[in-house]
């Protein structure tokens, strides 16, 4: 079982979380949407697996490279 950290590409805030902990995700599937500089930045699953943990909440500020969630595969 490998754990993959999904990190933020940008400084911004969490706008919407589309998945819940325990959900199965396919590679490339949308997990959440961040907001940065008036743009919606999609966060997609880099690998297929199960969403083991979501580390942020809506409206929370995020830094570049901050871990947003963990996928186990």
């Amino acid at each position, binding site marked *: 079982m490998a754990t993959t950290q999904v990190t933020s*590409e*940008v400084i911004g805030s969490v706008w919407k979380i589309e998945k819940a902990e325990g959900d199965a995700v396919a590679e490339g599937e949308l997990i959440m*949407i961040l907001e*940065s*500089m008036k*743009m*919606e*930045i*999609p966060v997609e699953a880099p690998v297929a697996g199960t969403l083991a943990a979501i580390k942020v909440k809506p409206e929370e500020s995020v830094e570049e490279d901050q871990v947003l969630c963990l996928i186990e595969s």
Partner: protein
Amino acid sequence: MSFDDELDELKAREEKARAMGGPDRLARRDAQGVLNARSRIDALIDPGSWVETGLLAVSSIVPEDRDRTPADGKVAGFAKLDGRMVGVVSNDFTTKGASSSATNMKKIGHVKRVATERGFPLVFFGESSGARMPDNMGAKGMGTNLGNDPQQYIRTRRTPWAAAVLGQCYGSSAWYTCLADFAVMRKGAIMAVASPGLASFAIGQKVEAEDLGGWKLHSEVSGLVDRVAESDEEALDEIKRFMSYMPSHCNEVPPRAPVPAGSDDGAKRILDILPESRKRGYDVRKIIQCLADTDSFFEFKPRFGRTAVTGLARLGGRSVGFIASNPMGKAGALDVAGCEKATRFTVLCDSFNLPLILLVDTPGFVIGIEGEKQKAPGKIMNFMQALQMCTMPKLSVIMRKSYGQAYLNMGGGRNSDDVAAWPTAEVSFMDAHFATEIVTWGQQVSEADKQEIRDRMEKDSSAYGLAEIFAVQAVISPADTRRYLIQQLEIHELRMSGGIGEHRMAGWPTTY
């Protein structure tokens, strides 16, 4: 007549030189999974193609070092890489830390000179401790060794240079890495002006080696390396891959490669990647992968200056360079690091006859205090000047937003040989939202009137508005973009010069 004694002596000297710093030191490297100076060369080149120069060179300054400086710590020579000639300098850290001496600097100078004058690339394997002491100490040391080659650090981009940071790189290993067109760094290696130890002694700064010059610093903050590798072997593969896109010298066109099956299928997927909402970001690297020949995109500096994406690729078998703004990084607003990255890459492509493809989705340049402190206007002009100086074919595709000065920097107007727009393109001086606020500044304007102003501005910013005044030469479907680019590359081929550009930036710096 027998010359057995003489030939035995030659053989013994050669074997001693090839043994480098001795079996114990080599075994310790093996145990760490790190290649040595000679196994690195073997892993890079075509088998059996090595022609060494200076095998029997030794230290010439300190008499007692004569017998303990095999090849004087820097292995140099010539070889074939995928059938093409290259020059190689490989630092042997097991011999006096591969420190720079009077003799081995002559070896480097020779390989550089031959490669440059005869027209083939150079590869440096960096792992050295800096200048050799006591050779370089005192007036005699400095006067004899350093500063006696007026061409030593001139970079004229006559032939491509690649460098790998494969251990401690201080002094010349750092200098040559920074002068190279392509640099890869193995995790765990360190590159800095001087060692953490010297930093500690000289200025009292207690630093960890990784903080001073580790892979994270150079791939994310300084941008001095283009790629990061997990192992020596992986680093050597990265150099091979870089060289596969490059000509042997500046007066040659890059090699053509066969087009992999299925390369035309990707463009159809672009419409699935491009979001319907203009406010939604996407990773432009996915678009490049759809446009380029299958698996041919080779990204430079993926963790540095992420507002821009740069990389080599092939289109219909031709080597090209891509520069794209990336909406995933600061909404695609180009920042200082993004400009530096784009400038350096433009100079590389122009110097080695690689056409440039610009993909545009940018709301402009990042504004604000931080950028100004980092000389943002100067960086924007460096990038702009590089683009205008570039004499290779330039093709620009406006995918979505292209605003203000960034419209020019990313090839808009006559800054490309051909500009196409997708129907989703919008071009203006600035985003209609901000423009409305500025033109109504200080006035009592209702929200309904502001919306009308915004709507009018947005309508006037369309791809068709550009097409009507021939500011773009075509409006194309994203799915037709690969075909368009391949056709335009053929139209704009530099027939009069056999594909060779003017290289007006060949002497530009390698770092900005």
